[in-house]
């Protein structure tokens, strides 16, 4: 049995099919990239899997358990954590406190939560920022804080929603290292939505492509980069030319 199984997942908002009959499976320890043009339904898929949106039809099985109709907090407690594309903070919490909220999922004790948050922040090289307000940080730092917060809950599966969007090349390099560290050293299974192709293609074992709510392709990065349907829908001919490929 696979670690995460999604069968015929469909989500419609009124007449709009945001996710149309999507199926895929994911093995433990895998790192999957989810790509597709804006409005393809990537974030909706994350929202469905993590329980924030009720699905219209289909089934989702996580680590042997049917989570299709569970609430978001119940899914989270089973070990599925996620980050959000747009981080909206009222600015009441410091970085450390933010990570502690994640840690509180596994403990009641404030001192334990604080100790665990410290560990995580140190591990991700964020401990210098512990006392800063999240809203005062650069976008890059905020994105890493959201990852740290998600890690606080000791997730088995981590869904990352555009953690590299809006970052400069150096910062992308940094976040790529963080993702690798989380995946390889901390042993989390990771699925990431990303528009930054050099990141997705470098780190992913497998790539799934969505377009207009449908899964149009799935395969290893090399295959996806050469898939004519994907090039047409999303990558564009320039990307292929830059990589020195033939159209």
């Amino acid at each position, binding site marked *: 049995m696979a670690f995460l199984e999604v069968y015929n997942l469909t989500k419609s908002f009124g007449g709009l099919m945001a996710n149309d009959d999507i199926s895929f499976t994911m093995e433990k320890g895998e790192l999957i990239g989810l790509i597709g043009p804006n409005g393809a339904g990537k974030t909706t898929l994350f929202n469905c899997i*993590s*329980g*924030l949106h009720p699905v219209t039809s289909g089934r989702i099985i996580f680590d042997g358990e049917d989570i299709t109709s569970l*609430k*978001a*907090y119940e899914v*989270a*407690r089973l070990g599925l*954590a*996620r980050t*959000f594309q747009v*981080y*909206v*903070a*009222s600015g*009441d*919490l410091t970085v450390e*406190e*933010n990570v*502690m*909220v*994640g840690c*509180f*999922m596994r*403990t*009641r*004790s*404030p*001192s334990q*939560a604080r100790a665990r948050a410290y560990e995580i922040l140190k591990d991700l090289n964020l401990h210098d920022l512990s006392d800063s307000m999240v809203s005062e940080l650069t976008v890059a730092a905020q994105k890493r804080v959201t990852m740290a*917060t*998600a890690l*606080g*809950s000791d997730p088995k599966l981590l869904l990352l929603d555009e953690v590299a969007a809006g970052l400069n090349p150096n910062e992308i390099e940094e976040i790529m290292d963080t993702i690798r560290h989380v995946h390889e050293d901390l042993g989390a299974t990771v699925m990431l939505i990303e528009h930054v192709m050099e990141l997705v293609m470098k780190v992913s074992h497998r790539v799934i492509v969505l377009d207009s709510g449908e899964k149009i392709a799935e395969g290893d990065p090399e295959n996806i980069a050469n898939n004519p349907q994907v090039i047409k829908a999303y990558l564009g001919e320039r990307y292929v030319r830059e990589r020195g490929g033939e159209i």
Partner: protein
Amino acid sequence: MEAIKNALDFSDFPRLDLIVVGLIAVFLLVFPVFPHSSFAMATMIQFLMFSIYGMGWNTIGGYGGQVDLGKAQYVGIGAFTTAVMLIRWDIPFWFSMPIGIFFAVCWSFIIGYPLFRLKGHYFAIATIATSLVLKDIFEVWDLVGAARGLEISPIKYSPPDFLRLIFIEDIYYYYVILGFFFVGILYVNWFRKSRLGFQLRSIKDNEDMARSLGINVHLAKVKTYAIATAFVSVVGSFHACYIKNIEPADTMSLDISILIALMAMLGGAGSLWGPVIGAGILIPLKSYLKDWLGAQAGLVGIDLIIYAGIIMLVSAVEPRGIWGIVEKVRRRKRS
């Protein structure tokens, strides 16, 4: 154990704050020893009562960001439980007060469960409505004395009666409410560092985020609302014994609800000292305004206009109130 340690641990405040807090605590302890007018004493008791109301409001309204404008209903439940039990069955304060909490918390579940499906202004409006409806029910309910309310007459007892909390001199009431005040501070100091406290702050930050971090948002709100309710109900019970003449129209009026929320917001919602600062400013202001303007015909409602002005000023200048300004200045100095 850790909970008690955390309740007593104020070490995350700068030393200056602790000195100021210590001085204020000492002042509160020795205030009655110095010569004072009965008016000043009454104002101090009001200040302590409203500080505790504000601390309760602050748990759900400040840390949780759920603006509640219906706290008066719980003042009423506490006050009338204690008054009815004392007058009809001679049950003393220390027994009726926990029973009042029980009723208030039960009512808070009945109200909170459906109301927390609403958000923002809708939630605030709904709390006003439930509070006013409960007041109307009390006004026609004979058991609680209907519109005339209830009167506890001290002649029946032999004051000072510590069990029933019947005193002639205000100084006794002062120390009782001061005790509750210190307990309230310690409780909130624990709460803000507890798991529930963090969950509430995360909910205020971003509900979807909170959900995806394993927080049952609805349950956390309902739980905290019950805690806030317990605070208010205790002081409501005290209010019955202290004022001795309670009627729904006063005890459960919308003014009380608004004043509670306003004080916490003015002082700084979501901070430990905010409600105390807010009460420290607004209660003397209210007392003196009444005293000063009460005699002048035609100016009776002016305090309400002043409150409305303060609400607008706070929300425009610094939504996190006076304490928010203090913290902002400190941050700027540090960086």
